[in-house]
């Protein structure tokens, strides 16, 4: 399993907006309200869907190069192309909305049979078949090469055995594809990370070059052009695209699934969350979002009938500790008891409740409690390291640390840490200041420095940068290209998205989650062991999962019900607009 460090929610904090599912809520314990969807759906209306600030939609093929892989692009593309597997809000597979109707596999985890629905059609009336899947696979395979022409390589290269772990992909008739792996893999892992990437593309229209390099160049040159996507199998077809203005899609009349009732959906560019707020207030946008710092202005929207909703992506946030080799702080952070004490000094519940006004939930490990999924170990329902300053101090004192002039000291070492945080949003500054204040009570002296997002990620991903000890403001969401939520790229020794943490037992537990097991129960048992250990070993200090705060006009319906917020990919064909509001 390959996990990827997600900064998308951090971007949300920086830019002062709630990202992703603007206007699309998930069920949660937060103070959300939902749009009543009991009235009869009616045809017509336009939905103006606000993009997160300064976001350009710039790639429209379902096979995506690394540099264009964003949730915002995905949100539009999945309206045009049905994915091989659609994930629900609880991270289970929605077979009805997937190209695959079933997947079988052998016990060894080496052979997988994908059975395709016969119902899916391209917008030109042609059926979606194995040929289209094989075309996608051939493009993926070629586009995964580091030598592929610009703008490739494919973003999923190296994730879910793609492409090098796959022995063969063959069609067994029009509606069955068989994949054989070179070595056994955990079946759930391969389905969620490998098979999920095989979104069919219209071979009859796009497969026009015999030479694959020419074909890749052809697709690469047209990927940023929405109007290239004339033949789609999703609920929508493209209408127009204007950078920094809007991207428009309209219902696909030949879509065999639930047909959209709206006239069109407009993805609106927003220069800032302030501009987006004005657009909501003046009804130029009827599906938007609020930054937590804008919650005080929410009555200006609710007074005109707008509904405020919350949506939790399947993701986590943390505070990083600089444990890179050569870091002067590594020798302190390498001690588990230090990490435990720091974790106990974090009042995540108060931050969630008071600073993020209830639109956040504390995280206690690598799997968030919201949204509810089968991946959360029930034993982790209670926080292993609850907020307790006294206990944290006692733990440090037990290991020889003493408070000298208000700072915990042991020999020549002092708990004086420079902490960077993502600047730009009041809420993130407030959270960092509360952390500083609480840690000060236990003798941990933290100096704060706000950094713009671009600087923040440059600093924390540079293993030679020792100017920071703690870093607050980044996280992950498990939204592809691999979806199976284990932490090889994050918590393992030398993980490219880690910050120097290394533990052999952790490495072994991560590796174990990639192996095949006879039953799902055994698979989950191994996964829970990894999860439990990771939660308690604290490779990062756990913070909160932040909700996207959505706003929708009173006449826009079904956005909450069909949010599928865990992956941030809503089913927009169910959205509709009532008249007379």
């Amino acid at each position: 399993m390959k996990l990827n460090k997600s900064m998308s929610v951090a971007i949300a904090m920086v830019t002062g907006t709630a990202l992703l599912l603007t206007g699309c809520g998930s069920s949660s314990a937060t103070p959300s309200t939902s749009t009543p969807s009991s009235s009869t759906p009616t045809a017509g209306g336009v939905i103006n869907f606000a993009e997160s600030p300064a976001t350009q939609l710039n790639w429209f093929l379902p096979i995506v190069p690394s540099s264009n892989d964003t949730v915002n692009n995905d949100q539009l593309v999945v309206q045009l192309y049905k994915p091989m597997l659609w994930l629900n809000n609880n991270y289970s597979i929605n077979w009805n909305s997937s190209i695959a109707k079933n997947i079988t596999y052998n016990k060894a985890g080496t052979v997988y049979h994908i059975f395709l629905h016969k119902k899916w059609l391209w917008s030109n009336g042609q059926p979606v078949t194995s040929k289209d899947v094989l075309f996608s696979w051939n493009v993926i395979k070629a586009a995964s090469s580091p030598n592929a022409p610009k703008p490739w390589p494919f973003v999923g290269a190296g994730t879910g055995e793609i492409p090098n772990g796959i022995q063969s992909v063959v069609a067994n008739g029009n509606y069955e594809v068989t994949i054989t792996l070179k070595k056994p893999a955990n079946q759930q892992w391969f389905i969620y990370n490998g098979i999920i990437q095989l979104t069919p593309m219209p071979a009859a229209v796009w497969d026009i070059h015999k030479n694959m390099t020419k074909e890749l160049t052809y697709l690469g040159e047209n990927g940023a052009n929405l109007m290239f996507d004339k033949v789609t199998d999703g609920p929508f077809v493209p209408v127009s695209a204007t950078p920094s203005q809007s991207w428009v899609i309209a219902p696909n009349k030949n879509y065999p699934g639930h047909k959209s009732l709206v006239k069109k959906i407009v993805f609106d560019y927003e220069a800032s969350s302030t501009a987006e707020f004005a657009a909501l207030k003046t009804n130029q946008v009827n599906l938007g979002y609020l930054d937590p710092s804008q919650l005080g202005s929410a009555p200006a929207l609710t007074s005109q009938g707008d509904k405020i909703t919350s949506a939790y992506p399947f993701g986590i946030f943390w505070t990083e500790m600089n444990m890179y080799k050569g870091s002067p702080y590594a020798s302190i952070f390498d001690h588990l008891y230090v990490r435990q004490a720091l974790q106990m000094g974090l009042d995540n519940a108060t931050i969630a409740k008071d600073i993020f006004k209830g639109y956040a939930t504390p995280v206690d490990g690598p799997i968030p409690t919201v949204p509810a999924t089968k991946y959360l170990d029930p034993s982790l329902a209670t926080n292993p390291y609850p907020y307790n300053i006294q206990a944290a101090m006692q733990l440090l004192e037990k290991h020889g640390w003493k408070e000298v002039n208000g700072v915990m000291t042991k020999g020549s070492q002092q708990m004086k840490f420079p902490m960077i945080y993502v600047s730009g949003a009041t809420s993130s500054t407030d959270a960092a200041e509360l952390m500083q204040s609480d840690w000060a009570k236990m003798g941990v002296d933290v100096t704060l420095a706000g950094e713009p997002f671009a600087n923040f990620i440059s600093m924390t991903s540079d293993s030679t940068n020792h100017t920071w000890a703690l870093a607050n403001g980044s996280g992950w969401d498990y939204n592809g290209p691999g979806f199976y939520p284990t932490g090889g790229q994050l918590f393992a020794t030398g993980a490219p998205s880690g910050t120097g943490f290394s533990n052999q037992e952790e490495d072994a537990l991560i590796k174990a989650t990639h192996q095949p097991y006879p039953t799902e129960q055994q698979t989950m048992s191994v996964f829970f062991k990894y999860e439990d250990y990771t939660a308690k070993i604290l490779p990062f200090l756990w913070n909160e999962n932040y909700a996207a705060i959505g706003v929708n006009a009173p006449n826009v319906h079904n956005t909450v019900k069909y949010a599928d917020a865990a992956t941030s990919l809503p089913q927009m064909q169910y959205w509709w607009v009532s008249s007379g509001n």
Partner: protein
Amino acid sequence: MLKFIVRRILQSIPTLIGITLISFAMIHIAPGNPVRLLLGNHYTIDRAAALTKQLGLNKPLWDQYLIWVGNLLQGNLGISYVYNEPVTTLILQAMPHTLIIVVVAVVAAHLFAVFIGSVQAYYKDSWFDQVATVVNYFLYSMPSFWLGVLLVILFSITLGWLPSGGIVNNQLANPGFIDWVRHLILPSATLFLVSVAAWARYMRSSMWDSLLQDYARTARMKGASEFRVVFVHALRNSILPLITLFGLSLPALLSGALFVEEIFNYPGMGLLFWDAVLSRDYPIIMGVTIFIGVITLVGNLLADILYGIADPRIQYK
């Protein structure tokens, strides 16, 4: 005159090289890694290395600069990291949007400033002059981004008369010319208001000086009407500073448009540049920088030429 223009163009070349050198160095030295931002939630060291190589960012800075200059000399400003499209295409798409609000603002502001400044000078120290001075100072000291927000609050949110952003109303089935004009009003008005205040102050001062000159007194003695004295005899001389400002104002207005376009979601050069800075899209940043650099130099040249045309005492050598 032709020799003067050619000489000025040749003198501009080292200036332009200096602009590109400093801009290129500053942009690349500034913190923030475009590869890190482009990969976003799919960052790994392998992918970062591949993309860095693909974008040519692994080469020494001087090498990157020479490649950029080489491409520039062939009319190629590079390919945007974010849009995957030629920078020239993106600039040409955005430029008309910016030009329309800037031209509307500049023309309206000049006409208005000439009128207001002249009347203020003629009725110096009157209640009109005092009120206009206060209003001018108020507008002059107000940043364009703040004024823009105020206009949105007043005309979009409170009164609901005008749209708060964009260039068309996407909820209309067929947005037409009227809709387009409605979207131009607030961004143009913002640029207009911040420009007119400064220019009116210049005009007032310049007109007051002119009205005290001998030729104005002579015109009066010859029986010319006050209208003729002010708007025919004094105006031509008073307007000289504004002609200089006209050329110099173009780059300033393009820069001012950056904030205005950000506030109004207006897809012009300013917004293109703003987004490029946020995403560290070096080719666009450099493309827009060189474009504004050229506009600045052309603006200066234009100011000199216009000054000569307006004032016969100026001789070009």
